[in-house]
């Protein structure tokens, strides 16, 4: 009798604790950043040919270049050459440009970025897309109705992009 009571009580407390895990501001921001990165990505899935082993039989780009016969053999270069010589990624390019721009006192790529709007943001229901008035307590996502809230709780809330 007593044992079952204590376990009940204990489990209740744990249940209470588990009910509302509130995601803090920093991880919400991290989540948002992840979403934005996903929106900029080229592909969602992996390269379908990744498992292919390139053999000599597979036609390469160079194969259809025979038309440019004016070019001297010496100057012909492979794509790998360019990729290796100019292999900087975007962030490196921006940083370099910025440093150079500051030195020469000119406007650079970063300076023309738009500012934040003075107007308040609008909120849309993450589930159905109509105006969403309510916030999810746990993760801050917007929804518009109990129905959408339930869908949100069942599918997305705290389930993706931890």
């Amino acid at each position: 009798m007593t044992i079952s009571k204590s376990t009940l009580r204990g489990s209740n407390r744990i249940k209470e604790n588990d009910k509302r895990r509130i995601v803090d501001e920093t991880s919400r921001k991290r989540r948002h950043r992840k979403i934005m990165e996903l929106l900029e990505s080229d592909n969602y899935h992996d390269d379908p040919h990744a498992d292919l082993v390139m053999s000599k039989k597979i036609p390469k780009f160079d194969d259809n270049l025979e038309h440019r016969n004016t070019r001297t053999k010496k100057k012909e270069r492979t794509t790998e050459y360019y990729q290796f010589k100019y292999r900087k990624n975007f962030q490196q390019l921006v940083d370099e440009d910025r440093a150079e721009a500051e030195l020469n006192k000119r406007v650079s790529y970063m300076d023309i970025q738009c500012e934040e709007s003075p107007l308040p943001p609008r909120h849309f229901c993450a589930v159905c897309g109509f105006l969403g008035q309510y916030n999810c307590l746990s993760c801050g996502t917007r929804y518009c109705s109990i129905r959408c809230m339930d869908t949100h709780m069942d599918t997305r809330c705290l389930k993706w992009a931890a």
Partner: protein
Amino acid sequence: MFKSKRRRTSGAMDSKPAKKESIEAIIVDSGAYSIKAGLSSIKKPNVIPNCIMKAKSERKRLFLGNQINDCRDCSGLYFLLPCEKGYITKWDVQKPVWDYVFSHNVCPINEKPVIMTQPLFNFKSIQDCMDEIFFEEYEVPSMFRLNPTDLGRLKYIEDNNFTQDVPCIIVDTGYSFTNIIPYINGNKYLRGIRRLNVGGKLLTNHMKDIISYRQYNVMEETFVINQVKEDTCYVAKNILEELKVAAKSGSENTIVKNYVLPDFNNIRRGYIQDSSDLSRKEYEDNCQILRLNNERFIVPEILFHPSDIGMKCMGIAEAVVKSIYSCPNEYQEELCKHIILIGGNCNFPGFKERMYNELRSQLPHSWQVHVFQPKNPVSYNWEGGSSLLKVPDFKTYMVTKAEYEELGSTIIQQRFNTWMIDNSEIKEETREKEEILSYLDNLKDKSVFGKQEPGENVSKTDSDESDTNIQTSDGNMNNTGQNVSDENNQDSLCHNSETDIGSKLKKTQLKTNENATETLDEFYLEEEECEDLRNSVDLFPLGNGSYL
């Protein structure tokens, strides 16, 4: 043998009609998603996807550019894109695509000069590589490089018979970003340029996201969903009204549409289902159908309100207004009459109307607002290439291969980057930065500033100042004039901030009345301070930039 002969003759035929124009060049507008390329003598460019695609169905083949048309099954296409945020970083992708574009398949170079576009503030390393590829690998005899919007402006001026110095503002909304570029006296006004990091790619990815959550999982179908976006999305006039309609059910809801997804068997490209058309009904039964409701206008809405998806950035119309206001006062009204919309996102139905409505409501009513959108906003910049060739003495601006070999990349790049952004612009650039620096120096003790605000304040006072300055029509004269006014301006700025910092000190000075001229000066400044109350740091400690 017979075959080869034939081919040769056809090649000669191609180059024959070319000789009519004085300069015949190949114009290439190399965008992040599509390359627009063709001879200057033709009317319409070849538009070729600037990517390499891999299909699931054909495992041993890569599809370069428009070879994708040969692909039978375009589901789950994997994209290799050469650009990152609009700037070329993956040369292992870009080089093969260019090789393909400049081969006999599309647009062979054949020893003709090349006019090439590059994004705004193209990074040096990218330009180096472009130089190397074109001069050394493709061995072009001469080349010129400029921003795509420069060409768009020339085309606009030529089509409407405007003078070269007509101010205009170009909104270029493409695949990776949206640029807003004001042109004054034929030059970009650098201080007015704005960039939104919203482009077609982001819209497609967002659409993919919401459809995957609400209906089918289409996360891998970038290619198909991009077509869905192109076929169904539109810009709402008033989003709240539109949402109300979308919330209705039955026949009252005029927005909801069923989109038949391609199965790459009977249907190669999806389309909006027409319930009255029975001929297709047969195979539609076996197809997957997307039901699109508010997605149709919520997605393009991100352009106007990036904050909808939590981006800390203003909308496209707001940014245009902001850009106009950051230009000198005397040009602002004129700029509103020449707002040009170009780029793929303009193809959303209702885009132009929405832009006009938003701009109209945000600009003073006494100003005339005119928004122009060309029939084909994607290739408009390319079409400007032939206008560029008509510029007198254009040949002298081109960089020849010999010059490249003698002078090297760095020097010829200066030529590319300073013809359109000519000397006055460069002076302006330096001037601008100096101003900011000096202004910051003056206010070092005050730590209320973020990075942006001083620039805004300066531009405000600057434009006020230049109002009094007599403008001459000549660009160069104008520039020197502005420089003079600028010195004045800097002086007054110094004084201004002095008065800001130590108004007490000034009062004591006034009392002592040491020097008659000095007090006069002070009075003058006092007056000016009253006029420029909006710029006073004390009144708006957070800066007044965002309230302009």
